[in-house]
């Protein structure tokens, strides 16, 4: 029962935040110079007054802003995110079209970065003041400091162009007509470079954080207790230090998992990955208001969902939270 009210309350809060974001973004986007009609006119290479007026009327842009907002919001409340006139498709369809690709990319990057980051951070914490530990930290610092897009460029150059091991771009081999497992394998091969590139930075983040967290946990009394029991160092590291050190990482990872989705613009651009990030950038450049608002909405939704998921995981990981909530 308290769980139910907790969840309901959470959802209520989330809905308010989402609506606030929609309104905020609505005005933000409309504050930008130019409108979709101007962009379409620009791209058509020809335009006259009538053409622009037609477009604006069709998009409802001839209405005052509050009316536009009202129309949009009442649509959203019925899960209608409007129509992208530019792409000639309902916004929802466009987004759902691209969402799987983004989720796959960020999901893979997330898992890779988290797994490798925690592993490397643990190793580094266990080898403090030893060369191997310093090398791990040096590398992670390097990854942390290198611009993501630059890594992406270099990765394409080395692994696709020079070595020709991995595809340079895209989601699947065009025209290969793979199905089933072969298709999955094909997608996986395409996924390697972008996921690694995107994951690299976050891996560095997790490595550093895991190490710091483990070192600070290893100062705590219960670790001394564990040693006094005569436990082997490996068991102490794993069962006592790592488990406790992971708590702050869960929080951070949850925060970043949501951010990753919207933050994959650069990776998706360089690797031509047909995801949300790129769609957003294009929608912004084309002032495709409805589409842009829809994407922002979904990004925010994902952030909130991930935060909730983080909460659940945190609750599972840390028994103390459960108690204070129930």
């Amino acid at each position, binding site marked *: 029962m308290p769980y139910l009210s907790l969840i309901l309350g959470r959802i209520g809060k989330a809905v308010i935040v989402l609506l606030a974001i929609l309104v905020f973004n609505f005005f933000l986007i409309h504050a930008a110079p130019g409108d979709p009609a101007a962009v379409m006119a620009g791209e058509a290479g020809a335009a006259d007054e009538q053409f622009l007026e037609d477009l604006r009327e069709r998009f409802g842009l001839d209405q005052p802003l509050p009316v536009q907002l009202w129309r949009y919001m009442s649509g959203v409340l019925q899960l209608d995110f409007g129509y992208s006139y530019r792409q000639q498709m309902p916004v929802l369809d466009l987004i759902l079209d691209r969402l799987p690709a983004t989720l796959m990319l960020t999901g893979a990057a997330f898992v890779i970065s988290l797994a490798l980051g925690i592993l490397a951070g643990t190793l580094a914490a266990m080898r403090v003041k030893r060369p191997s530990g310093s090398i791990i930290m040096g590398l992670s610092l390097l990854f942390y400091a290198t611009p993501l897009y630059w890594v992406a460029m270099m990765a394409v*150059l080395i692994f696709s162009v020079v070595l020709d091991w991995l595809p340079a771009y895209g989601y699947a081999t065009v025209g290969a007509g793979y199905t089933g497992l072969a298709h999955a394998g094909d997608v996986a091969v395409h996924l390697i470079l972008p996921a690694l590139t995107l994951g690299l930075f976050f891996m560095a983040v997790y490595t550093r954080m895991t190490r710091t967290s483990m070192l600070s946990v290893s100062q705590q009394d219960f670790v001394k207790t564990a040693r006094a029991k005569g436990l082997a160092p490996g068991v102490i590291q794993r069962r006592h230090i790592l488990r406790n050190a992971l708590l702050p990482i869960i929080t951070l990872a949850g925060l970043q998992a949501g951010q990753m989705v919207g933050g994959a613009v650069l990776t998706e651009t360089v690797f031509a990955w047909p995801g949300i990030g790129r769609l957003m950038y294009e929608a912004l450049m084309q002032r495709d208001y409805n589409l842009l608002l829809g994407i922002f909405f979904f990004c925010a939704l994902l952030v909130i969902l991930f935060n909730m998921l983080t909460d659940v995981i945190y609750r599972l990981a840390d028994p103390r939270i459960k108690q204070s909530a129930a």
Partner: protein
Amino acid sequence: MTLLSSVPGRLSVATLLVTLTAPVLAQETPQSGGVANVAIQPEPPGLMLPLVQNAPTQRVAGNIFEGLLRYDADLDPMPQLAESWEISDDGLTYTFHLHPDVTWHDSEPFSAEDVLFSVDFMRETNPRTRAALDHVADVTAPDDATVVFTLDQPFPAFIQAFEVGTLPMVPKHIYEGTDYYNNPANRHPIGTGPFEFAKWDRGSVIELDKNPDYYEDGKPYLDKIYWHVIPDAASRAAAYENGTLDIMPAGSVENFDIPRLSEMEGSCMTEAGNEYFNPFAMLWLNNREGPTADKRFRQAVMYALDRDFAKNVLWNGLGQVPSGPFTSSLAAHDDDLEPYPHDPDRAEELLDEMGYDGEPVRLLPLPYGETWTRWSEAVRQNLEDVGIHVETESTDVAGWNQKISDWDYDIAFTYLFQYGDPSLGIARTYVSDNIAKGSPWNNVEGYENPRVDELFEAAAVENDPDKRQAMYDELQQILHEDVPLAWIMELAQPTIYRCNVHDLITTGIGLNDGFKNAWIEQ
């Protein structure tokens, strides 16, 4: 009828290239089969060409839709959906005879009714068509295979208005009586072209299949065309290098990469196919206010610009430095016109003469990619070097459009299609009744000269070629002196492709005209 090609000695470099290479290709027999992988950048917003008119849409949908005519490199009309045509001697009646046995991709027959519907449709939805059909008084269909256009006055350039982009054929049976913009067929466009729409994975690939029932026997030769959406130029180049892509249309390769890609083994390049559009890069100079309102300042800009540098460094030597307002490939070009030389001293003199006080001018670059950004940097540096203080106002396409349409700029980059006739592509930029806020394609600079208005109006409806040329020569001299805007480059549009792809570009419309004749040597 063939007014333009009848003027001798006006072949551009590009046309020469085509005429030189064409015979070589023609010797081989086309082979059927194969798949073409083509880069498309940016991803088109839609493929319903009659409704969506931007460049990538035209490029892809030119395979799905067709117009009545196509045009060769000299812009002479060639048959397409119209098998033959006649123009009355008074230049007022145009009669088209349609190809028999043409069907839409959904197997419905194509007829003159569709042509009439398309004219109405395009007039309603497309401003460019609206302008091109400005002088049309009446369109009729005496029978299923004949269409007659009647003009209210002679308009020699009218014959150039039947290209697929300007007047594509729209299936009446699908669109009649519907809300054009929300018609579900927009997502699965139906045309008469050599290829049919198959599939579109948004963000990655557009698939076109061979139209098996195409009315020209044996064509098309290709089984499939894949249009690859790769937003990053370096990734596109890499994809061409590793063999994923076969054809890189103009704009999909950054200029700096052109020499490298075109010199790869088995890689060919052509500049053919831009004769119809004839793109011309210019700087809008705001004639209304600020330093740019002074003719001497505008001339100083012309002297300050190092246009050869731009051509050689930014465009890899492709394209041409213009001598004046008319591109050199136009029949009406005045060959006696001397281009403004790069002369910074002269520019500084002019600035001194007008008493330029260092008031900063805003420069609005064209947000169309790296080359244009670099170009604006070069222009800014050229201007700074003669003492003009420049502030760059960077913006995206929407902002650029807005600012130009609202005349909120001092100097702004643009490029405009000149098309094959001054009355179609050039007059709109200079005549004073085309001054109106709200569009980036009219007389944005605010230049007003009654004599220029008069000359453009008279020349457009003048049926006598010599009189016409005399008017255009005078026009060019006036504009050359007044510098209403700065002409910076006649743009080349190189296509890079694998040499085993043949007959890729066979008209002056280039890739936008579809891959009807293209075949791959196995």
